């Protein structure tokens, strides 16, 4: 309990007791529910029925819950891809692009080495996916380190380049004989194994493992300490003899590698095929979750869960209540808005 509290006391949040924090976040969720209820009413849907639908089809059943977990996987990984560079003060908005390039690299292995056994092919795809993401992040990381361009701009701009490259590869080389917008289905050895008779695949455990590694790394290691120092005050860190440039590049590439891994896990574990535009803003979703969670691993887990419930539930509403797809975005935007504003319900912030 103490540990949780300690993490919530990040510089952004002034110290408050655990009880206050819990009440605060509960009230925030209530606010979201009420606001969204109004939107539902305007659309002519019954908010109570809609919420009941969302609940029974996400948390209320084993299948629903497993779908929530499946939706969580890319969110966890892409959020981590933002959280790692975040710790040295880099804003990585490029998760989306890195994810595409990572997926492309992994796909190359999946299509080229179809005869390899799974135990060799999957790690190869994993490594290539990470390599692809890392290379894509090397561009903004290097430009930032030599003080040329802000990484927020470059990562954002590169996002619109990466899917085009993937499109180019699919159209020209990889598309299946039947269909021009996707590759042929991967061989079973190129697919991450699924568990419990659900669609939950190995990516979920990789994500959890990475989150724990991240937490340990930041808390206990020398490199974690030096990264915290760079994030806290880059000038001082440089003057204290920490190789800031090297860190900026390596950490940015690590972020890219993680995003690339998310791409690999999506195509190998979820789709089993590389589709054109397979990711609809997964990278941005990760960014949002990282913001909401303040970059902390436990927070990323909780926030991914919440967002996954919203998206899976929202998808369902489209079907059962025939609401427009934009409704999910409204719900997400509400959540983001309220969490970022972090309204305080009692007392006032000390300045």
């Amino acid at each position: 309990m103490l540990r949780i509290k300690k993490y919530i006391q990040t510089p952004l949040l002034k110290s408050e007791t655990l009880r206050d924090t819990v009440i605060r976040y509960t009230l925030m969720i209530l606010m979201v529910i009420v606001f969204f209820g109004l939107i539902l009413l305007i659309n002519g849907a019954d908010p109570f029925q809609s919420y009941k639908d969302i609940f029974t089809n996400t948390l209320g059943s084993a299948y629903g819950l497993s779908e929530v977990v499946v939706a969580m996987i890319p969110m966890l990984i892409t959020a981590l891809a933002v959280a790692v560079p975040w710790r040295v003060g880099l804003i990585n908005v490029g998760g989306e692009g890195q994810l595409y390039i990572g997926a492309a690299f992994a796909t190359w292995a999946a299509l080229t080495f179809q005869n390899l056994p799974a135990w060799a092919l999957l790690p190869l795809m994993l490594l290539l996916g990470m390599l692809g993401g890392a290379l894509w992040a090397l561009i903004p990381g290097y430009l930032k380190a030599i003080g040329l361009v802000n990484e927020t701009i470059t990562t954002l701009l590169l996002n619109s380049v990466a899917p085009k490259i993937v499109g180019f590869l699919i159209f020209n080389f990889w598309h299946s004989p039947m269909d021009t917008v996707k590759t042929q289905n991967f061989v079973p050895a190129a697919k991450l194994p699924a568990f419990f008779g659900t669609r939950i695949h190995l990516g979920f455990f990789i994500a959890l493992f990475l989150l724990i590694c991240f937490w340990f790394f930041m808390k206990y290691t020398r490199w974690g300490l030096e990264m915290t120092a760079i994030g806290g005050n880059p000038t001082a860190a440089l003057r204290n003899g920490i190789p800031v440039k090297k860190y900026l590049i390596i950490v940015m590439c690590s972020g890219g590698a993680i995003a690339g891994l998310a791409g690999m896990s999506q195509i190998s574990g979820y789709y089993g095929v590389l589709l054109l535009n397979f990711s609809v803003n997964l990278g941005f979703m990760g960014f949002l979750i990282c913001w909401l969670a303040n970059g902390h691993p436990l927070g990323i887990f909780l926030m991914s869960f919440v967002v996954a419930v919203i998206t899976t539930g929202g998808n369902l509403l489209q079907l059962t209540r025939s609401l427009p797809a934009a409704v999910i975005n409204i719900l997400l935007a509400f959540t983001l808005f309220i969490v970022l504003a972090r309204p305080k319900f009692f007392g006032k912030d000390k300045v």
Partner: protein
Amino acid sequence: MVRSQTLQNKEQPLLTLRGITRAFPGVVANDHIDLDIYAGEIHALLGENGAGKSVLMKILYGFYHADSGEILINGMPVSIQSPHDARNLHIGMVFQNHNMIPVLSVWENIALFLPDLKFVVDAKNVERRIIEISDRYNLKVNPSKLISQISIGEQQKVEILKLLLSDARVLILDEPTHVLAPHEVEAFFKVLDSLRKDGYAIILITHKMKDVLECADRISVLRGGRLAGTMLREEATEDKLINLMFEKVVPGLIVGTEETRKEAPEPFLELQEISTDTRGMGRGLKDVSLKIYPGEIVGIAGVSGNGQKELCDVILGIEPSSKGKKLLAGKDLTNRSIGIMRKNKVAFIPENALSMATIPYLTVLKNMVLTKTRRYSRHGGFSMDWQAARADIENAEKRLGFSVPLNVIAKTLSGGNLQRMIILRELESNPQLIIAAYFTRGLDVQSTIAARQALVQAREKRAAILLVSEDLDELFTVSDRLAVLFDGKIVGEFKPKDTNMYEIGHLMTGSGVHTDAEN
């Protein structure tokens, strides 16, 4: 000198503060302060850092609001809610860090401040008024020059002109002599004198005893947020003022005698004709050669912005040199990274501990190990040995004679304590070269002495020390050799006993040397 008599003739003070109280979380910055300011006087507000001088003046200027107490002008209570109100009541303030726009010219900066500025700016009129007033008070500046082109001393003149043109009658000056060379200070006091004769009320915030005794009519001393006493200059002596400023006696600095220091044969640091590129607002170094021997303190005098930052950064390895060589103990380390310099036992004590050396939201302990994370890492870096770090720090604390709390967040430390933390960190591992840049700036008298003492102690341990400072008293007290930096060049090198502050002052401002540039 009949200033004091003229004062007593006036019954009513121009400005009266009654019972001003202002508390911040954890500290009462102003505790029932009463103060009278008369027209035609220079009133010095003396006190060490944190005594409440600046807070009191910021209340007067509308930056802060008093929790209780009242402000009267000519006996009428007034309410000052913002600097705008203060200016309407003819109160003006010059801050320590001048607030001007460097890319605009002098007259434009002044015009921006004028309350009666027309929709279409009448440049001629503004310039005429500037010249009129600057002639009258000998505040000569060229109105059409850009702020970025003029010296800090001239910028200060512009700040004062700004207030005069906007009809301020009460001028609050926050540490005005801080940025000036000795001969500039004299001229500045003449300006103040003529302003006083014309009936301006001048409040001078300072912690320099010398200034106060030289130019003030009355002196109020603040201590710990309370008014410790007010006296006329005629009755004030340095001892009396010190007694008012400090409750306990301040121990003096033990400098040590020169005889105990043997000359070393080889310099620890040698710069051979180092030059750097000029970048942005900075000033590149030009052919700087400098040797620092073990066991000596080399003082660098100069008005800041003349290449001091570049000099420190070149030695530290942050700024690349375009030409020349840097030798450390005979080894060529030109343009090697700061990490390598750090490994070669180079320490750095910056002017601003919080922004240049500290990670604000880490604990003091973590901040202390940041310069030597490798030494305390175990299992190849996967864990840190905090016990060992703690033990080393405790040893250093014993040696240096001061301590800091280790488990608090660094940001919560006061300025003096933060600087102590940095000094402790940098001196803990017996560095062989110490770069100290303005390292006592903003410290109170006691912290200053402790900081200088630590430096002197390091010299006794045969460290080579580079001390960059604007405080000539400091440089003359502790340096073994003095070099003057002007416009990126070393324009003079002396033993302190062979020179005096005026000579140094002239060199600092470029008036004593012939420069190649035409201006």
